[in-house]
């Protein structure tokens, strides 16, 4: 090996389970959901937390699915706190009693990220595929405030709710959040299956961008507003994951270590399992993590591009989706030969006659 050892990951995304009460049609979990019987056990997660801390990982995000459905969530948070990791809980707020959060807070949790599907209950419940879910989230928000936990409100926006950005920011203020994440749907897996029902129009995106700027100005000094941008209408790609195998490592419920949550959509990659190999070794040596690490794998126009260290050629999964080749330039880039095709897809899908969502369900192939 001539390449120097990569710096350790900054963050570990621990997908504890794919189980979730919600059925959001843009879920970032894969189309083939892991069953409960294939989930890693408590002792394996504890070992992983120890390994991550020893490597120099700084933050761990407990995610899913719904991580609160794991009976051992407080035990895992407690271990992560003991090992000095900054701990995040990424929750839907649904499927567990709000009081259950108290044990997790007492374990030393640093930060809760609570998702919402919109500001109107009926519409939000429709997207979540579960009546009453918006009301459950409100209850949890009250509990988070009572426990004094740092809260981020996480709102995924799409054609059906993108006009609500100012109202979503106000909701975050009402709930005492310190941070809001306005995330335009990213089109992988379930969201691709629903792209013609979710894609906003260009006019909606322009309006959303203006709304975001206005809300940032209005709440400056009180609220941090982060955004995930709608790259189908962009000129340059997003710096996906801060570079492949550069900052993030993701472990699935069944123990596969991935460079990003959608990496399994790239069919020729083989992912090591944390049951078989230490995390540090997977990060450093595995073929999947080295496949698109750095810039050596790039071809033109990326290879000679002055932005190659800034956006890393964009997203490998999106390249695969459009070019059939994960080493191609992300078509979100205006230098990609497929850039016009991507824009055409967005334009077509954003004005498609939308019928019912394809909801996230187990067992879909």
């Amino acid at each position, binding site marked *: 090996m001539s390449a120097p050892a990569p710096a350790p990951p900054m963050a570990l995304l621990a997908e504890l389970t794919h189980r979730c009460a919600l059925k959001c049609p843009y879920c970032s979990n894969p189309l083939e959901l892991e069953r409960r019987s294939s989930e890693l056990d408590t002792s394996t997660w504890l070992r992983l937390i120890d390994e991550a801390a020893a490597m*120099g990982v700084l933050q761990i995000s407990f995610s899913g699915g719904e991580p609160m459905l794991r009976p051992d969530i407080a035990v895992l948070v407690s271990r992560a706190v003991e090992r000095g990791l900054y701990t995040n809980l990424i929750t839907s707020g649904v499927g567990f009693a709000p009081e259950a959060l108290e044990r997790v807070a007492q374990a030393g949790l640093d930060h809760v990220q609570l998702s919402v599907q919109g500001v109107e209950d009926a519409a939000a419940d429709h997207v979540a595929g579960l009546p009453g879910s918006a009301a459950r989230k409100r209850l949890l928000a009250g509990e988070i405030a009572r426990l004094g936990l740092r809260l981020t409100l996480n709102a995924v926006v799409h054609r059906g709710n993108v006009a609500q950005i100012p109202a979503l920011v106000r909701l975050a203020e009402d709930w005492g959040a310190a941070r809001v994440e306005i995330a335009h749907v990213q089109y992988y897996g379930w969201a691709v299956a629903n792209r013609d029902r979710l894609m906003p129009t260009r006019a909606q995106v322009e309006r959303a961008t203006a709304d975001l700027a206005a809300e940032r100005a209005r709440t400056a000094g009180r609220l941090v507003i982060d955004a995930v941008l709608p790259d189908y209408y962009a000129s340059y790609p997003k710096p996906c994951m801060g570079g492949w195998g550069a900052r993030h490592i993701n472990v699935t419920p069944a123990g596969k270590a991935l460079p990003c949550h959608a990496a399994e959509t790239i069919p020729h990659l083989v992912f090591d399992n944390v049951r078989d190999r230490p995390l540090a070794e997977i990060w450093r040596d595995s073929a999947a993590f080295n496949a698109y690490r750095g810039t050596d794998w790039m071809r033109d126009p990326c290879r000679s591009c002055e932005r190659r260290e800034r956006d890393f050629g964009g997203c490998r999964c999106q390249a695969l989706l459009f070019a059939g080749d994960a080493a191609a330039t992300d078509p979100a880039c205006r230098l990609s030969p497929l850039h016009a095709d991507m824009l055409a897809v967005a334009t077509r899908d954003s004005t498609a006659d939308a019928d019912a969502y394809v909801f996230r369900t187990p067992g879909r192939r």
Partner: protein
Amino acid sequence: MSAAPVRGDDVPALPRGVRLQFNEARGQWFLQGPERVFEPDEIAVEILKRIDGVRTVDVIARGLAAEFAAPEDEISADVAAFVTELLAIRMLERREPSA
């Protein structure tokens, strides 16, 4: 309001969900919050270590000036600017002075 300018008698504190830690594996200090990791320089680390929800901005500045034999007015301005910046992104909060 946190938009108000920082005063000498303000008491800054690290809120819950914000942590200053030395990471042994990396041999380095980090200030962390939700989806945020900062790598404070040596001076910032010295300021942050003294932010305890008890000491005022003035007390912190006086202590630093004494320890590093530096002019107090310069240090005061640096500390105030630093605290202002972190308050704006909620990596610090103002604590009510204990009576």
